Every structure is written in structure tokens, then in C-alpha cells.
């Protein structure tokens, strides 16, 4: 028992440094459950609406994203909740658990903290044990919170049995992926590698489930996500997947502990791959340098925008049935009753997606601020590239990213709509997406000015963007004076396809954006680098 010595103290210590982070995660996940239940009961309370939603959920794209349609013979709010919330919920919970485990095991080992702890009279496995206990505790709390929330907020279709099963399903998904992360933390010798491996397992499980649901059923049973989904709370209420999941988790945890006990501190079981000895010619250009810095987030954004585009686009066919008669949604959308609901929905969704793309573009540009804060920007400025070249590298990459992501999401949206049988011109959707580019550039321009002149104020751009977002959502819901609306660049963009493309707006907004960017660049040229 030597190797488990002081596990208790280690757990208390781990809890002390982790509780705020985990509390935030739990609050977030509780909000996810609350929003899910309340939204379904409020919006799809009527049987007819429920029916329409059930139809929409059987669409193959929706099944791929959210999970196989369940409870089709008796479609209830409970079944709808399970189908639409489960897989995404699993992914979020798995994310929390993977981060928790890697941060507390391999992360501390890489930082050298574990070495200090291990030099004390503490058992070799105490540190890892503490993390496992934390993982179990967190997910147990999550399970209880979810069950209680479902019982409190749910309607008659959300039974006690189903609520408990849902909680158990959530808890097991987190513990299982936490256990996977504990294994990957033994395999790779660094934090990033451990996370990447664990995320790959998660991503792989997601893809296996999609293929499995599309026909090869055995694959969805192999995928942990697909397996646990088969519990189908509020529909078939099957506990078998939970037991299988539990068994797999126990095996994974035992293996991980055995591996941990038998390897050297700081070492990973997989060999470190040697990296490149020389830089590619791309890295040596000012644009390529920025591109390589933001490559990974950009790929993630592309995937996210693609999935968003597909999921919104694929329900276009069903929108009419889904939305008509729903007062709140009609009020948000229908500023002009002469225009079809579907067109308005499309304008709205494409505008929202343009705002999300803007976040991505701003993030690309703001990488320059992160570089400055981490004192790497000075190495770049100390070279023989002018400051204008340096900042333009980031600005230009941001602009290109915005174009690229708008292209991806509008084609995904239009493509999915076409594939699911809605008659739409792909070019129209693309044009709608592109119409927002000048407004997005103005957001970027404001960010460049903030960064260029008073770098500390850069985060203000998120407030401004949030303001524009709120206006877009609620501008028609409440009577907001036009002057407030005009402050948002997105307000000026004609809502295609229900409104006409305007060259006047496009050119004006673009010119304003260019001026803003130029002013910001001038600021950066004459200020101190901190």
C-alpha cells in the first residue's frame, strides 16, 4: 500500500486548486441541461410542433450530428431532449473530464510540480489517485445535478427512471473519457500530446458513431458515444450500455495506474517524434509565419463552421413547419410579413454565422496581442521586417480567414439545404455570406485601432462585438432607437436574400474598414512594444 500513501491529503490539495474551475464547468453544463429542457418544453410544447421537430430530427444530417432518432412511435419532449442533447452533452462532459485529467496528471508532471511532490513521503500513485477521485466526484455531482434538474423542469414525459438514467449516462461518459485521458497521459510525454491523443479518441468515437448510425450498427456499439447513446433515457431506458461503460472504465483506470506505476517520472510510453530541423519556406514569409501560428485554431474553426452550416442548412426544408405559429421566433424574424418565413430564417442564420466567423477572424488578428504579451513579438520586430509588414501579416491573415470561413459556412449551409431537398441557388447563399464581409472588416478595423494605439484596451473589441450580436438578435424584438442600431456595422448590411444586394453599402463599409485598419497600423508603427 506504500504507493497509495497520502492519497487523501493529495485529493484535498487537488480539490483546493481545482474547485473553481470545476464549479464553472458544472454551472456551464447545468445551464446546458436547463436551456435544453426549458427550450423544448416552451417552444415545442404543442403536439403539432413536436411532430414537426420529430420529422426534422429524422433528417440524416441531424441524425449524424445529434444521434439516431429515437422513440419514433411515441415522440415526447423527453425523447426529443435525449436525441438532441445527448451526443453534444457527451462531448462537452468528455471535454471537461479530459482537460481535468491531463491538467492534473501529465500537466503537473511536465511543469515539474509532480517531481516536488514525489520527493516528499507521498505514495507513487497518490497524485494520480487524487485525480481519479476528483474525476469520479465531479462526474457524480454532475450526474446528480442533471437528474435533479430534469425532474424539476421536465414535463410528464420525463420520468424519474429516465432522469436517473440520463444522469448516470452523463456521469459515465465523463468518467470514461477521463479514464481515456489518463491512459493517453501515460503514453505521451507532454501535455499537448496527451490532450491531442485523448481528443483524437473522442473525435474517432464521434465519427464511428456517425458511420455506425448510418448503417454499420456494430460500429456505434464500439464507439463509447454510440454505446452510451443506446441507453435512450425517456424512450427505451436501457441500462446495459451503462454497465458496459462502467466495466470499460474500470479496466482503463486499472491499466492507467499500472502503467503509471511502472514508468519513469517525466517519461512517456510512446517515443517522442523528432520534429523538423529546418523551417519550411512558408514559415519564412511574413504571411506564412502568421498562418502557421493560427493553423490549428483555423482548422478547428473551419470544422465548426462546416458543421454549423450543415446543421442549419439541413433543416431549411422543415423550417416552415417548425417555426410557423411560434410567437417568439416569428417576432424575432418577421419584421416584414411580406417576406417568406424561410427566407427570413435564412437571413437570420447567415447573419448569426457571419458574427461567429467574425469572432474567428478577430481571434486570428488578436494573436498579435498574445504574441506581444508573451514577448515573442519583439523578436519579430527586432528583425528587418517593418512594423507595418508585421501587423499587416496578422491583419491580412485575419481577412483571408474571414473570407475562407464565410465560404465554408455558406457552402455547407447551401449544400446541406440542397442535399435535403430544398430548392436553393448556391450562389445566392454564397453572396449572402459575402455581403457581411465589409461589416466584419469594420470589426477587424476597430480591433486594429485598439491594438495599434492602446494595446491594453484590445479586449474592448469583444464588448463591441457582443453589442452588435445583441442588436442583431433583439433589435426587432424591442424597439431600439435607430441611432443605437447604426453603431453596429452589421445593421447596415442588407439581409439577403430577402433584401437586395447593395454596392453602395458594400463599398462604403469597405472604405471605412480600410481607413480604420490604416489608422490602427499607424498607431502600431509609433508605439512602444511592451
Amino acid at each position, binding site marked *: 500500500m506504500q504507493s497509495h500513501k497520502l492519497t487523501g491529503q493529495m485529493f484535498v490539495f487537488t480539490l483546493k486548486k481545482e474547485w473553481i474551475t470545476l464549479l464553472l464547468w458544472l454551472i456551464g453544463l447545468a445551464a446546458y441541461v436547463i436551456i435544453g429542457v426549458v427550450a423544448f418544453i416552451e417552444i415545442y410544447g404543442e403536439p403539432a410542433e413536436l411532430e414537426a421537430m420529430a420529422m426534422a430530427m429524422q433528417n440524416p444530417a441531424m441524425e449524424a450530428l445529434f444521434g439516431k432518432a429515437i422513440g419514433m412511435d411515441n415522440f415526447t419532449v423527453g425523447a426529443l431532449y435525449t436525441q438532441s442533447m445527448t451526443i453534444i452533452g457527451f462531448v462537452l462532459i468528455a471535454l471537461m473530464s479530459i482537460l481535468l485529467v491531463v491538467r492534473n496528471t501529465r500537466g503537473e508532471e511536465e511543469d515539474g510540480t509532480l517531481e516536488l511532490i514525489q520527493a516528499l513521503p507521498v505514495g507513487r500513485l497518490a497524485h494520480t489517485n487524487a485525480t481519479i477521485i476528483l474525476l469520479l466526484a465531479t462526474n457524480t455531482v454532475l450526474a446528480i445535478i442533471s437528474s435533479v434538474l430534469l425532474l424539476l423542469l421536465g414535463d410528464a414525459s420525463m420520468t424519474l427512471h429516465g432522469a436517473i438514467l440520463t444522469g448516470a449516462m452523463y456521469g459515465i461518459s465523463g468518467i470514461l473519457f477521463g479514464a481515456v485521458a489518463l491512459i493517453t497521459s501515460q503514453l505521451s510525454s507532454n501535455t499537448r500530446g496527451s490532450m491531442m491523443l485523448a481528443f483524437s479518441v473522442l473525435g474517432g468515437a464521434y465519427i464511428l458513431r456517425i458511420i455506425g448510425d448510418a448503417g454499420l450498427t456494430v460500429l456505434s456499439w464500439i464507439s463509447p458515444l454510440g454505446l452510451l447513446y443506446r441507453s435512450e433515457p425517456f424512450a427505451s431506458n436501457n441500462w446495459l450500455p451503462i454497465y458496459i461503460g462502467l466495466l470499460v472504465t474500470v479496466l482503463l483506470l486499472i491499466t492507467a495506474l499500472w502503467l503509471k506505476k511502472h514508468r519513469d517520472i517525466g517519461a512517456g510510453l510512446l517515443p517522442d517524434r523528432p520534429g523538423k*530541423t529546418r523551417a519550411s519556406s512558408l514559415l519564412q514569409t511574413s504571411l506564412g509565419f502568421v498562418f502557421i501560428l493560427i493553423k490549428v485554431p483555423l482548422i478547428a474553426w473551419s470544422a465548426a463552421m462546416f458543421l454549423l452550416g450543415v446543421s442549419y442548412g439541413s433543416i431549411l426544408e422543415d423550417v416552415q413547419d417548425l417555426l410557423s405559429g411560434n410567437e417568439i421566433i416569428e417576432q424575432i424574424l418577421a419584421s416584414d410579413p411580406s417576406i417568406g418565413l424561410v427566407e427570413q430564417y435564412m437571413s437570420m442564420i447567415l447573419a448569426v454565422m457571419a458574427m461567429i466567423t467574425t469572432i474567428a477572424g478577430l481571434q486570428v488578428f488578436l494573436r498579435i496581442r498574445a504574441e506581444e504579451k508573451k514577448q515573442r513579438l519583439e523578436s519579430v520586430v*527586432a528583425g528587418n521586417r517593418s512594423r507595418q509588414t508585421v501587423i499587416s501579416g496578422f491583419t491580412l491573415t485575419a481577412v483571408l480567414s474571414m473570407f475562407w470561413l464565410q465560404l465554408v459556412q455558406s457552402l455547407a449551409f447551401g449544400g446541406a439545404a440542397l442535399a435535403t431537398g430544398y430548392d436553393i441557388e448556391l450562389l445566392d447563399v454564397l453572396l449572402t455570406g459575402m455581403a457581411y464581409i465589409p461589416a466584419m472588416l469594420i470589426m477587424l478595423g476597430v480591433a486594429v485601432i485598439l491594438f495599434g494605439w492602446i494595446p491594453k484596451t484590445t479586449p474592448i473589441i469583444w464588448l463591441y462585438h457582443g453589442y452588435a450580436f445583441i442588436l442583431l438578435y433583439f433589435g426587432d424584438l424591442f424597439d431600439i432607437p435607430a441611432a443605437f442600431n447604426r453603431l453596429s456595422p452589421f445593421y447596415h448590411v442588407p439581409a439577403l436574400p430577402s433584401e437586395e444586394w447593395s454596392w453602395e453599402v458594400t463599398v462604403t463599409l469597405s472604405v471605412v474598414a480600410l481607413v480604420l485598419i490604416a489608422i490602427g497600423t499607424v498607431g502600431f508603427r509609433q508605439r512602444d512594444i511592451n
Partner: protein
Amino acid sequence: METLIKVENLSKAFGKTQALDQVSFEVRKGEIVGFIGPNGAGKSTAIRILLGLIKADKGRVEIFGQDVWKEAVDIHRRVAYVPGDVNLWPNLTGGEVIDLFLSLRGIAVDRKRKEDLIRRFEFDPTKKCRAYSKGNRQKVALIAAFAAKADVYIFDEPTSGLDPLQEQVFQECTKEALEKGASVLLSSHILSEVEKLCDKVVIIRQGNIVEAGSLDDLRHLTRVLISLKTVEALPDLDKQPFVHDFHMKKGEYIFQLDSDHLNDLLAYLQPFTVTQFESAPPKLEDLFMRHYESTRGGV
């Protein structure tokens, strides 16, 4: 001799703190100047101004006769810089960053020279930068600096993470660069290194230059450590005005002597039989400590 770095009456304030106040010094062609001073004295601020990263409030700062702020890009073509705290991109390998740094100076990579330096510094360029220790990160910057010719090298505590063997390599590389006619400004805490390498030193304290000149000149301004033995007892030696920090150890008289009073000491010793006489030239450390102590004293 041509002056490559020229700093004249340089002042810079951050808010209410005066980081640099009327600082002047210069580095001539082929010269290596040590830039020393306690933490927070303003060394790094001065270096960042030289690199055009921050803007001087007042004064003239030039490299190659060009204004460091306005002509920064032009100047940087011929300048190599190594900071003390090297921050690198965690997802790039050391080898990639070396090439990146060279490309940032607009220089094509000389593979042979790069590999030669990698060998000399015993550096593994295939690892991602997140895996490097402080010393290894410094090697990245040092290899990139030495891998291509520069006319001016600016080092800000470049060896603070290196082991003594690699410090040696750094000193060799610096000497080679000097032989090729380069000039070096070396800010360092390792005074023995400065002593070994530098022709001149500039000592900065609380934003002011307190001492500047050749090491030999500076030594004259300071004290020599003397230890001596005599057959007879020496009366009143400790009361002589040129004797400081007097104490006795195993029958030896040990004290500090004002360098310009050596003659007075010899005159004083004339009547006695001296059996042992040792004098140690002042170390840079003593010089430095004197200024450092006065800082602490709040002078």
C-alpha cells in the same frame, strides 16, 4: 575609429518612473563593451530602445549613424540580438525557429554554419520549443545570432541559463565575431565573463551611467586588495588614510588600498622587514559591489 552605437543624453520614463536619465555611451567598431548594473537599473530598457522596440523620450540614439527608431528596419539587417529571456513558439521546433529568426533578418540560412553551431552548442534542434529548458531556448537565439554575419551584436544576459562549457562556446563565438570586425554590446550579470571578453565597461545604476571606460582605467579608480607579513609589528597601519577594511588573519595584514596611494604604502613600509607581499588587482565584482552597495544605501 568609427562609432557604431551612439547614445547621447538618452532619457525614458514609464509613467512616473524615470527608467533612464541622461544616459550616454558609445560602442566603436571592433569593440566589445560590457553593460553592467543591478536588476532594474535600466539595461534592458536601453537595449530595447537601441532595437527600436520602444521610443526614447529624449536624446540621440544611433546605430551606424542612423536613428534607431526611424531607421529600425534598415539597422536590423546588420544587427543580431539575443535577449536574456528567450520566448519561443511552443509548437515550432528549435531548428524551425533558428531559420525563422534568420529569415526575419532577411538572411538565407547557411546550413553548414548552422549545423556547425548546433554541434558546438550541443543542441537538439528537432524538439518542439515547449520542451526546451531556459538554457536550450537561449541556445536557439544564440545559434540564430551567430549563424549569420552581423556588424553589431546586442546581447542581453545571453548566458544566464547556459552551463560553464557552453558559456565557453559563447565566448569563443563572440571572439570570432569580433575578429571579423563586429562590435558587441554585452549586458551581463556574469562579471567574470565581462572581464574576460570586454575592452570597456559601462556601469548603470538607477537609470544613470555611473562609470564608463576601459577596464584598466576603472581599476585605477578603485582599490587593491593587499595582504602582507612583516617581521615587526606594524603600528597604526589601520589608521593610515589610504587603508580600508583592515583586519588580521594568521599574522597577515589584510586590507584594501586606494589604487593611487601605492607609493604612500611603500613609503610607510620602508622601515620594516616585509616577508610577504601580495596584491590582487580589483575584480570587476568589487567595482560593481561598490556601486551596488551605494544603491542599497540610497545614495
